[in-house]
């Protein structure tokens, strides 16, 4: 007994020394060293340079519509980060509902427990993966009580954009509920962005951030003015076109440590 204890102690002590040494030589090389949080932020812009705003009259440069948004929410899920060595860190249970009226127009997502290391790419899914659309009652960000689940035609509303507009065909208001997770009208989109030659080194300073940019006005890029159609409330080609256009606008902006 005593001997095993002693041995254990020595082993522990040795590994402690080893860890310290290693730490000094190669501070960011091993996942066993520690983890830190990384923040993923998405800035929503209007007309490429202005800040996107809710409850404000905005003119869509693509269609000329005047739009005043009361709601803008959408899902991001399945976030992964690629390490310099090509392997991936995957966030477990990775589901976020970005609600711009509650979180502001540059909402953040906390990636907790990211192992120390050099990262070169971020991947994520816009919308909720098909599995969670068919697996029964979910909770957290996926709770149906958040109003982002269709009760009569099961599936998540991946994006909700609502507001008022003098141009709208439907009595001065617009409501686009975009979703669909299967077949030709599947809107769920996987995206990835490299950090354009840079790498994000996660080493415990607690300040790592990845910034992306998205442009809500692009929702109407192909479908045109809300005077043509101001309401979508089920999966279909309209939802597919609008979400493809918006999801296509996501771009990498910068990283900082």
């Amino acid at each position: 007994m005593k001997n095993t204890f002693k041995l254990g102690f020595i082993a522990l002590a040795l590994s402690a020394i080893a860890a310290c040494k290693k730490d000094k030589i190669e501070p960011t090389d091993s996942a066993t060293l520690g983890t830190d949080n990384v923040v993923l932020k998405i800035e929503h812009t209007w007309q490429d340079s202005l800040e996107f705003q809710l409850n404000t009259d905005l003119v869509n440069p693509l269609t000329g519509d005047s739009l005043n948004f009361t709601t803008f929410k959408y899902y991001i899920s399945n976030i992964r980060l690629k390490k310099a060595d090509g392997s991936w860190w995957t966030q477990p249970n990775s589901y976020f509902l970005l609600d711009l009226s509650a979180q502001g127009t540059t909402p953040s997502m906390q990636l907790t427990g990211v192992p120390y290391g050099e990262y070169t790419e971020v991947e994520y899914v816009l919308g909720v993966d098909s599995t969670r659309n068919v697996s029964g009652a979910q909770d957290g960000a996926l709770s149906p009580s958040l109003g982002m689940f269709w009760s009569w035609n099961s599936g998540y509303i991946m994006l909700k954009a609502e507001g008022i507009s003098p141009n709208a065909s439907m009595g001065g208001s617009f409501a686009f509920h975009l979703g669909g997770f299967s077949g030709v009208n599947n809107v769920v989109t996987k995206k990835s962005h490299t950090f354009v030659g840079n790498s994000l080194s996660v080493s415990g300073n607690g300040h790592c951030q990845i910034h992306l940019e998205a442009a809500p006005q692009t929702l109407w890029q192909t479908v045109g003015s809300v005077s043509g159609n101001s309401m979508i409330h089920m999966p279909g080609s309209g939802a597919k076109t609008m979400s493809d256009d918006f999801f296509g606008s996501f771009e990498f902006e910068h990283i900082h440590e």
Partner: protein
Amino acid sequence: MISLARLNSNTFMSNWRWIRLLAVIAVGSLIVSCKKEQVEPYKKWGFSKPDYFPEPVYNFDNNKQTFQKFTLGRELFYDPFLSSDGTVSCASCHANSHAFAGHNTALSPGVNNLLGTRNSPSIANMAWSPSFMWDGGINHIEVMPIAPLTNPVEMNETLANIIAKLQQSEKYKKLFKEAYGTEDVTDQRVLKALTQYMMMIVSNNSKYDQVKHGEATFTDAEQQGYELFQQKCSQCHTEPLFTDYSFRNNGLDQSFSDGGRFLITQNENDKGKFKVPSLRNVALTYPYMHDGRYYTLNDVLNHYATGVQHSSTLDPLLENGIPLPGNEKTLLIAFLNTLSDYHLMTDFWLAEPKH
């Protein structure tokens, strides 16, 4: 008595009401048991697949079956408190006395006596159903209750309000704690508990089932009706669940005020198609069809024999209707009557909880 003793010792301990009830039953059955074994529930509590049924679609992997969750689900199912004005419960439209279908009205009133557009189907054997609603729009039983809970013409409530109401109820605090370990009310917990109750609604004790088990025999008329059924109906109303769960147009109309499956798929070829309903307990669940247009089985058979309407989505099997000459209708009805499961309607576990 074995099952009661087991439940008594490990699952009911914290629930005095149950213990009291069980004590009464236990004493009662002790007295009676010398003569007849009648008081004990006719089957043990717990989901089990009848041996000649296919594998259920629902599995309890993410919703481990416990008596406490089931009990919570049963309370919720019978509680009008969940509706916006406290008048309508799930059981208002899915009554155990009617084999878990509506109260024999074409449409079932929701809050403020508002009516929807479709007939309340029996919700027996949902564990085997791959989709829900007449149009199959709902893909999982756990999310099924969201539709009636939030539908303005049914229970007209928001999930957030339901959570808030339940959180304030002493009764439910206790039931949630017993079921889930904490008093926290979440929609997921509500939905999974309702599912636990619904999964237990298994109809497998009709005369038809007893014949399958060699415990009863069909009369001549029932036997002939069964053979006719197998020739003429079972392509769609497939045994042993009496549906193949496909969506079909059985020729009710030439043009469709309710698009049915089309509303979900937006596919023109699905216009006027509805889910083939199970025919278990069919004699008890009139009126018939998605809109409750026929009140008797005779009307239904007349439809198949002479009333089939042609349209581009009519099922090819019904191109010439289903001729039912001579006494074939009478024989078919004799068989359909054997699908009534009277045990289900008096099932001890499924009945409204007494307080």
